[in-house]
Structures are given as C-alpha cells and as structure tokens.
C-alpha cells in the first residue's frame, strides 16, 4: 500500500513537472478568482472599508474551500478522463481492487493539492497583504470536512463511472458545496454533509473560538457517515458498470 501511495504520488508529481503550465494555470485562475472577489467586496463595502483581521479568515476559508472542491471533484474528473483515454480498464485490473486504489489515489492527490494551495497562498498573501496565521487545531475539523468531501466525491464518481459526461453537473454543484460549507452548524444542518466540520472551522477562524471537542466528534461522525455512504454508492456503481460494460469510454 505504501508503494502504491508512492507510485501514485510520483505520477502526480510527474504530471506537475511535465506540464507546469497546467499547474500555473490552476494557480493563476484560483488566485485571480479570489483577488476579484476581494476587490469586489472592497468595492461594495465602499472605499476606506477595512477587512482587518477578517481578511485572514476569509483567505484561509478560501484556501480550505479549494481543498474541499478538489476532494469533491478530482475522482470524477480522473474517471472521466481515464475512461476516455482508455486506461480505466487497466486500472480496474489492479489486484488491490478499485476502492482501495482510488482511496490511495485521493490521498496522494491531497498531498499534491497541498502543494498547489501552498503556491496560491503565497500569491494571495503577496497580493492582498494578508498574513496567514491560524489556530493549528483548525486542521481537525477541516479533516472532517475533507473526509465528507471525499464521500461526496465518491458519490459523484459513481455518476461519472456510469454516465461519463458529468462535467456540467460538477461545475454547477460547486454552488451546493459552497452552501454546505456556509451552512450553520446547528440543528438539522448538522446532518448535511461537511456542514458541522465547516461551521466549527469557520468559528475557529473568524471568531477565534476554541476547539469544541463535542462538535468535533459530531463532525467526524458526520464525515464517516458520508464517506461510508459515498464508498457504498461507488461500490454499487462499479458493480453496475461491470454488469453493463461501461468501463471503457466512448
């Protein structure tokens, strides 16, 4: 498994090294989006409005959002591309089985994504003058958010496996993701995927709230619930794809 992780990570790094323009493109796009939002917000708030300490929180939130987005979409994009180029069937010939293999892939992708986010953070701190400082405990609720994101990612991956062209759906559903990350962490909202972890992280970032252990437990329960659900759906989708002969793309 460790070897598989290293092989996957190596494959990611090779892609970055060989196609630096794609990496650059991603960094520039994500940075520009944030910068425009930042300028727009300043414009709306009127001249002289100061974000003060809030800017840091917003920036960290944004970076975390890119992580969550990646967790949510990467499996589907990978599946669609590989079905089209025709390597998916070979991947499914792995004795590890598809679910462990894609879990390891996700993990190594997360590390690669870390590199990307680090670059974006550098660009944005330079552009906006914000400094990145946050309570390291934020990592914990955020981990819960990511696990939930991967759960949803596996659910979307099921659709990608069965219906191939779901790029539009993925694009549109990013707004849903945004909603989930903004949802209040109380009452029935605790049942929504990613919501409890996201609201904990938000509280810690914006209001400097201390880590709430009880809330963290709820966040992880929620995360594992959705991860389990995603994996279950994906397993079903694999079975169905194998039944209908959908592993090769057209």
């Amino acid at each position, binding site marked *: 498994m460790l070897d598989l992780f290293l092989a996957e990570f190596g*494959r990611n790094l090779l892609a970055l090294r060989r196609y630096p323009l794609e990496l650059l493109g991603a960094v520039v796009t994500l940075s520009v989006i944030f910068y425009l939002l930042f300028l727009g917000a300043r414009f709306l708030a009127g001249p002289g409005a100061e974000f003060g300490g809030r800017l840091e929180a917003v920036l960290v939130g944004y970076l975390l959002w890119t992580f969550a987005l990646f967790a949510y979409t990467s499996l589907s994009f990978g599946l669609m591309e590989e079905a089209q180029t*025709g390597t998916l069937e*070979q991947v499914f010939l792995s004795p590890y089985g598809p679910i462990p293999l894609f879990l390891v892939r996700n993990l190594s992708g997360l590390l690669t994504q870390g590199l990307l986010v680090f670059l974006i953070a550098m660009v944005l701190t330079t552009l906006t003058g914000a400094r990145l400082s946050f309570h390291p405990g934020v990592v914990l609720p955020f981990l819960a958010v990511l696990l939930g994101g991967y759960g949803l990612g596996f659910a979307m991956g099921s659709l990608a496996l069965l219906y191939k062209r779901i790029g539009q759906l993925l694009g549109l559903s990013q707004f849903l993701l945004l909603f989930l990350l903004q949802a209040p962490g109380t009452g029935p909202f605790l049942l929504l995927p990613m919501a409890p972890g996201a609201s904990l992280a938000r509280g810690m970032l914006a209001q400097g709230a201390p880590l709430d252990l009880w809330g963290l437990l709820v966040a992880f329960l929620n995360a594992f619930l959705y991860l389990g659900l995603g994996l279950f759906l994906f397993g079903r989708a694999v079975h169905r794809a194998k*039944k209908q002969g959908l592993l090769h793309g057209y």
Partner: protein
Amino acid sequence: MARPYLEAHGLYKRFGALEAVKNVHLTLHPGEILAFLGKNGAGKSTTVKMLSGLLLPDRGEVHLLGKNPFREPLALKHLGAVLEGNRNTYWRLTPLENLVYFGVARGLRLAAARKRAWELLEEYALLGKAHTEVRHLSRGMQQKLALLQALIHDPEVLLLDEPTLGLDVETALLMRDKIRTLAQAGKAILLTTHQMEVAEALADRVAIIHQGEVVVEETKEGLLARFAGEHYVLELEEKPALEVIKQLRALGVEGEGPFFFRGNAQALWQVLEAVKPLPLKKVAKGETDLLEIFLKVVGHA
C-alpha cells in the same frame, strides 16, 4: 495434463436484446496458446473482458488459478491483459514510468517494479525510448509497451486482444517470437486476432466463436488434419486410358489430373489399385490452412 490456469464455464452475456456471448466454455493450460478467432462482433472482446473480471457475466463462472476474479480481486495478480482498441498506458508518461506505475498497481514493490521495468525495456528493445512520453512513440512501440504493461508483474495468464494489430512486418514477427517464448516459459495465453497466419503460426489450440457461440474448439493439428483429411490429390506422369478414368469415376475421383479423391486412407488404396501400373507423380493429402477452415466454419455455422 496440468491443472488449467484459467477456466470459464457457461459464460453468457446479453446487452439489451443482443446475446453477445452464449454459453462459452474455455480453458487455458500452462504453456499453451489458444487462438480465439471470430468475425467482427462475434463476441471475442466481450469474452476476454469477462475472463479478466472487467465485465460481469449474466451467467457462468470464471476461475483464475482457482479463484473468482469478481469476488477476489487479488486473483488479478495472476493476469495480464492487452485490451482491444485501448491505449492501455498513460500517454503523458514515459514507458519507464508507465511500467513502474502499473507494476506497483499490480502488486509489486516499487524497487521490484523498477528493476523489472528496465529488464523488459531492454529485452524488447525499447531502452532508447525509456524516457520518451508514450504519445511521442510510434504506434508499434506503443503496442509493444501495451504488451510489456501486461507482463510487468509476470502473470501466469495473458489475455491478448489483437496484440499485433497495426504492426509492421518486422515488429509483428518480433511480437510473434516473444509470444511463443512466453508460452514456452509456461504462460497460458489467449490470443485474439484477425490475422490467420499469426494464429496458425502460434496456436496450440484454436477456438472459433461465431455469433456468441464457440463452434469449434480443438488442437490446431487436429483441426488442420480433420479438414485436410477430407481429400487427397493424385497426379500421374501420363494421361490414363479411358477405361481407367471410368474406374476412377466409379470410385468417386474427380478432376482431370490432378485428380481429387474424397475418402479415407483405405479407400485410397482402391484408387491406387485402379491406376496401377501407371507411373505416379504425386500422391498427397490435400493441404489446408486456418484461413480456409475459418471461412468454412463461420460460413457454414
């Protein structure tokens, strides 16, 4: 005979209204090459995908070294496949990177995969291209790499769906030699191809599938003998007299010289008796090849 590496019983697959594969039984023994022949759309690739655990049969079972690849993915350690129409490898990686990646994905340790990748690249004369992205390789090299990708974890069973498609003469011959060598080393190989000369050169056994059903399955020798055994060719140094011709016709001999005789070896003696003592030029069993047999079988079936 040794226990088969791969066994398939009663495979059946339907796509909507189409019965793509009907009740197919196949076995692959160590050291043996099975040529799996059939027209376009006969069900070859569908069968190959069921054998490799990529397509779930509606009915029937697959045993790969005794294990069911659908329930136990670990069994796939014993299988390598070149799949039809696919690139089989990552275009943005080099041959070396592809082989190392797939080696590990097939269960090898990283170091072992690297070592084996270099050995294979050397053996298959791809060392010079080890660091060239696959998309920049020629088609033949890509096809060779697809085979190496199937070999990287040294599996017992190889399923090769048209591995020699689109290769130049020399590369095709090299592939042939390599496939034969692999079988001699004890691998069980299933080979689909539309090139009958490839099948004829390599096969130990031949299975012909027609509209989803295996209509012929036997050893290549047996098959060639069975179809060749149907007629003899007889040539004489001089034209026989009319009486002799009459006698020959009575025995069922056709043709004006060369003469053709359909019958068994015993009946042939009667023919020879009839032409005695005319000088013989040639008596031979009629020759046939896989192409002729194939056309006969799928034409009649």
